[in-house]
């Protein structure tokens, strides 16, 4: 039977668009206002600083991605460098962060579109779920389709942003920009920590590296191009926005870019920028769904996640089960609305991932000096060390509530890791015990209802008896299930392999 695996179908353009699309989300459309409130017009310096900080770690991604082009991105790097729980934790954060990111972007899409189409608050989760479903289909269809859709979406987005910049430079309202930070260097630092999230997500290229053509050359080029392109895009956008709208007006705006576009291009400008915002959100959903599935695939490949996630679609050559399972979780996150809170965990997870990638690079340089590296980080070890220092610095500025959430995610990871490590048979026995308890609980409830200790309001005695009997039946089923799980035999251990003699008996 022909072995089905992931196909290398992404070229430089598609890989770069996956990186840019992963990073540019609705954030830049809404965050510039508050960042300007923190740093004044010096928010441009903050954006440049963010770009440089991002580049430190992007260099590490480029080196490791080119040297180890297997599915899973930072999870794969940390697995080879550290293995065990550290690598699982990296994969766990990468997987959960991408699901949160997809859910956030899908909800963000619904909110942005409400600028031009009336959307009730109750319709927001449903729109988000529809968007997730659409991009799940795209992701199941093939990585080439993901790459092509990214090229189209980012092409539209970049064209609109270029139009925005061009119209800004040609606007009568354009004035000379004076860089000033009213609150001093601390304001710039705070704005840097706040707005850094707009650079997160570009590492999606590394996650899909198993599907990139000529990985030794394409991956470093795509990652570094993405990092550089993001700096140029953000600086130009911020420069034009700040040159048109005074900082004191900008800081109160829910969406500064849309407000500035309205000043230069009128109502049509607002509509165009809303389209850009929705396209940015859609491309993030697309990239994040792809990224989470590749991480789940890699975790499954190494036995941490169920084997079912390792299935590759015979026709489309995509890990379709991993795509669908992750999309279901993402849909639930988007539907419940809790993402407003857990969304912050996305940043925490990505920043932890940055630190671990830089640490993996240093460890692999020491322990595997002979590993073929088509691209090498310049100024080693200062660049990855700067990446670690700046990531930790960003964590220090994160809200305390987010840190608590991060710790909770780590505890959940510990639980998942040890449940997996305990082994199938022991978990089955544990669930057998739980079923026996549930059976006992159902039997007790049935007894209390039947004897009248627990009274049901307005229910006649015959119905009470029927309810009690249903509970008793449930109790019997739970007890039987418990007994069957507890008494299940463990899988027989494999017999040690012994060579067979090729000599014929005489």
């Amino acid at each position, binding site marked *: 039977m022909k072995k089905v695996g992931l196909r290398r179908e992404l070229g430089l353009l598609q890989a770069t668009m996956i990186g840019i699309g992963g990073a540019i989300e609705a954030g830049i459309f809404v965050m510039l206002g508050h960042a300007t409130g923190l740093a004044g017009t010096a928010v441009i310096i903050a954006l440049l600083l963010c770009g440089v900080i991002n580049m430190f770690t992007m260099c590490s991604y480029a080196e490791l991605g080119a040297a180890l082009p297997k599915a899973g991105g930072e999870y794969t790097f940390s697995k080879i460098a550290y293995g065990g729980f550290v690598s699982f934790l990296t994969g766990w954060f990468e997987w959960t962060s991408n699901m949160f990111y997809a859910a956030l972007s899908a909800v963000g899409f619904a909110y942005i579109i409400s600028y031009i189409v009336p959307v009730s608050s109750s319709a927001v989760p449903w729109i988000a779920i529809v968007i997730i479903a659409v991009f799940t289909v795209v992701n199941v269809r093939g990585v080439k389709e993901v790459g092509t859709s990214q090229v189209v979406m980012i092409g539209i987005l970049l064209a609109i942003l270029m139009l925005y910049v061009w119209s800004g430079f040609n606007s009568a309202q354009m004035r000379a920009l004076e860089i000033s930070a009213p609150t001093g260097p601390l304001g710039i630092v705070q704005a840097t920590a706040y707005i850094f999230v707009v650079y997160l997500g570009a590492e999606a290229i590394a996650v899909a590296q198993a599907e990139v053509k000529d990985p030794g050359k394409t991956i470093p080029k795509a990652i570094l191009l993405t990092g550089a392109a993001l700096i140029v895009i953000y600086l130009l956008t911020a420069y034009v926005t700040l040159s048109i709208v005074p900082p004191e007006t900008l800081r109160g705006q829910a969406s500064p870019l849309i407000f500035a576009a309205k000043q230069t291009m009128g109502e049509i400008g607002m509509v165009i920028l809303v389209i850009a915002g929705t396209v940015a959100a859609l491309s993030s959903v697309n990239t994040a769904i792809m990224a989470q599935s590749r991480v789940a695939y890699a975790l499954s490949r190494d036995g941490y996640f169920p084997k079912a996630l390792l299935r590759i679609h015979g026709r489309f050559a995509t890990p379709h089960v991993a795509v669908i399972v992750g999309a279901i979780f993402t849909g639930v996150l988007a539907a419940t609305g809790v993402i407003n809170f857990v969304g912050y965990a996305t940043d925490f997870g990505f920043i932890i991932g940055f630190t671990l990638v830089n640490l993996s690079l240093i460890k692999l340089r020491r322990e595997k000096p002979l590993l073929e590296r088509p691209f090498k980080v310049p100024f080693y070890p200062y660049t990855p060390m700067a990446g670690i220092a700046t990531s930790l610095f960003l964590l220090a500025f994160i809200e305390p509530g987010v840190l608590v959430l991060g710790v909770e995610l780590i505890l959940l990871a510990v639980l998942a890791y040890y449940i997996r490590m305990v082994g*199938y048979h022991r*978990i*089955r026995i544990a*669930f*057998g015990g*739980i*079923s026996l308890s*549930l059976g006992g609980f159902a039997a007790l409830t049935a007894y209390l209802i039947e004897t009248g200790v627990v*009274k*049901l*309001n*307005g*229910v006649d005695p015959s119905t009470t008896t029927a309810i009690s009997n249903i509970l008793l039946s*449930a109790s019997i*089923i*739970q007890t*039987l*299930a*418990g007994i*069957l*799980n507890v008494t*299940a035999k463990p*899988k027989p251990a494999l017999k040690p392999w012994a060579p067979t003699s090729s000599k014929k008996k005489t």
Partner: protein
Amino acid sequence: MDIRKTITKAVGLAQGVVGAASFVFAYFLYHNLFDVQVVLNVSAKDLFLYVLLFIVFGLLSLASARFLIFEE
């Protein structure tokens, strides 16, 4: 297929149905369909606790059923 496997799968299916029914009942309780909250004397204060209880019951039943249906 031996008889133990058949029984195991049947019990697993039944447990799965019990688990799914628990979810449906949690939904009924939350939305007070058929006046379930009144019948069970569930106050608004305790509603979430009861809903959580049924969801946990359902989840554990489904997880256990999974072991029985897809026995390795």
